[in-house]
């Protein structure tokens, strides 16, 4: 549907127009502020927090929140406040890289299959259908059990499982675009297929690809956190929030609420922030 809209309206608002729309949306600004906060925390948090997030204190395990430990301590006596503050770093590295991989590869496949059609397109589309019949999480879970969990394999697993979805979106945008006159003109000029795909079609479908990129980052964070919770994502001693909840959720029956609640709130704020940004961008680009 976005492909059709693009085909009809080649006139795109100048970039500053989009920016002005964004600056007027309170939801977008709130989301951007949250994301910025966590990015700054992951870049500089380690230097700012008063207590080393990795330092265990076996005499002070599972202390409730106090003046010294604002968010209490975990099973190893590590300061929860410091760990929550620096806990965004790994997920904010892994999720965007996985998204770049998935969107990059998906765009390449979508361009080629949409432009050439034919047997390859048929085959790839069927394969995409088959992969999409499995929940993303289960595909990633199987891949990570096979490859063994590490930051690299998490990026690979999530990136590759995003690829078919992105390929499908890009392919439908290309299908709408390739029938337009400028493509026919380029063909008559004798431009090569590769040149037409990359230099002619690609710039015209950057809108949907950009939206796909921002939406996918949200999904990637969702999925990385979930995989970490399941024990096949980010690995100890990372202060990652999902991992921390996975380590501590068995304790909440005993009343140790601080060992999971702050991590849960932190994840919530990050995913909501990212999605407010994605939603704001989508609305601004649609107008």
């Amino acid at each position, binding site marked *: 549907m976005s492909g059709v809209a693009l085909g009809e309206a080649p006139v795109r608002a100048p970039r500053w127009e989009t920016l002005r729309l964004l600056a007027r949306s309170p*939801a977008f600004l709130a989301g951007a502020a949250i994301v910025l906060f966590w990015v700054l925390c992951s870049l500089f948090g380690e230097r700012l927090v008063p207590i080393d997030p990795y330092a265990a204190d076996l005499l002070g395990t599972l202390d409730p929140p106090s003046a010294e430990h604002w968010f209490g301590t975990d099973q190893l006596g590590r300061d929860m406040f410091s760990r929550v503050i620096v806990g965004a770093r790994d997920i904010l590295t892994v999720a965007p890289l996985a998204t770049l991989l998935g969107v990059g590869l998906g765009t390449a496949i979508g361009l080629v299959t949409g432009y050439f059609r034919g047997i390859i397109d048929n085959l790839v589309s*069927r*394969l995409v*259908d*088959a*992969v999409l*019949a*499995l*929940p*993303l*999480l*289960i595909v990633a*879970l*199987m*891949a990570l*059990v*096979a490859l*063994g969990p590490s930051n690299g394999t998490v990026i690979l697993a999530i990136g590759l499982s995003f690829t078919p979805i992105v390929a499908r979106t890009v392919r439908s945008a290309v299908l709408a675009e390739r029938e337009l006159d400028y493509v026919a003109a380029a063909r008559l000029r004798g431009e090569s297929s590769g040149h037409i795909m990359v230099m002619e079609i690609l710039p015209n479908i950057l809108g949907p690809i950009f939206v796909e990129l921002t939406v996918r980052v*949200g999904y990637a964070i*969702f999925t990385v*956190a*979930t995989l970490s*919770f*399941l*024990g096949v994502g980010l690995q100890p001693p990372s202060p990652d929030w*999902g991992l921390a*909840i*996975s380590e501590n*959720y068995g304790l*909440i*029956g005993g*009343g140790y*609420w601080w060992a*999971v*609640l702050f991590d*849960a709130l932190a*994840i*919530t704020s990050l*995913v*909501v922030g*990212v*999605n*407010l940004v994605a*939603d704001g961008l989508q609305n601004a680009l649609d107008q």
Partner: protein
Amino acid sequence: MTLFLLSVLVFAGGQLLPGDVGRSILGPLADQRAVAVLDHQLGVDRPLLAQYGDWIGHFVLGDMGMSYIYRAPVAPFIGTALVHSLKLGAVAFVIVVPLAILGGVVAALNVGRWLDRVITLTGLSATVVPEFVSGIVLILIFGVWLDVFPITATWPPDSGILTQVYYLILPSVPLVLVLFGYIARMARAGTVTALDADYTRTAVLKGLPYRTVIWRHVLRNALLPTIAVVATQAGYLIGGLVVVETLFHYQGIGGLIYAAAKSHDFPMLEAGVLTVGVIYVLAALGADLLTVRLNPRLRFGGAA
């Protein structure tokens, strides 16, 4: 066709998992000859194509092979787990579908006003929070602090249906939250489009009462795309079940797949994943058929 490719993919995925099957069952200390004998008994030393043919042939007939871990047929495990998951999924759907459609339609009728914004933003935020996060907060609030719901989903044996539903309410809420946003968004978009359509203007200009226009003209057209979304979410739901069933210690298909993946129990894993895929494809097919049935315009075209 999709199902065939899916089965090949699942099988290939299973083969990708590392390690010698006999070795992983017998442990690192076992004699190499014993490993070879077990490999031969399990048939994993045969060519891949023969293994695949054997596996899919039996699967179609309902024989899903033997679990490496339990040394018992896989099918009964899958069957029991599927029933459990269907119960949980059913509770979630019964809660979310009316709620989300109502939310979407109310938002659409108030489009642009604050009620629309509140519903849209709430839906968006609820959808993006991972299930384990909302689940843990729910357990904390309703299971530990208020103590009104049990924190595991496994009911005592011989519980009646009401007790079972009571045990499933808390685990279903994280799924409800994630699904709410998608379904409400579709319902809202469909209603907004229908409100703008010519047939709605005609109905209003004919002087039909507002209520009749909404029920007879707008909603009928607006909710068709929503049905398709509800069905595709059934596939997503199973991914969510992996998390929720792990968190709430519930013996469903998601928990089963997770346990099988962690313990490298390939027959169980492959059977579980293929079952999930089959359910998804069937749900999508069912949605197509239902859409065609409800929309007369599609009945004779080749659209389905």
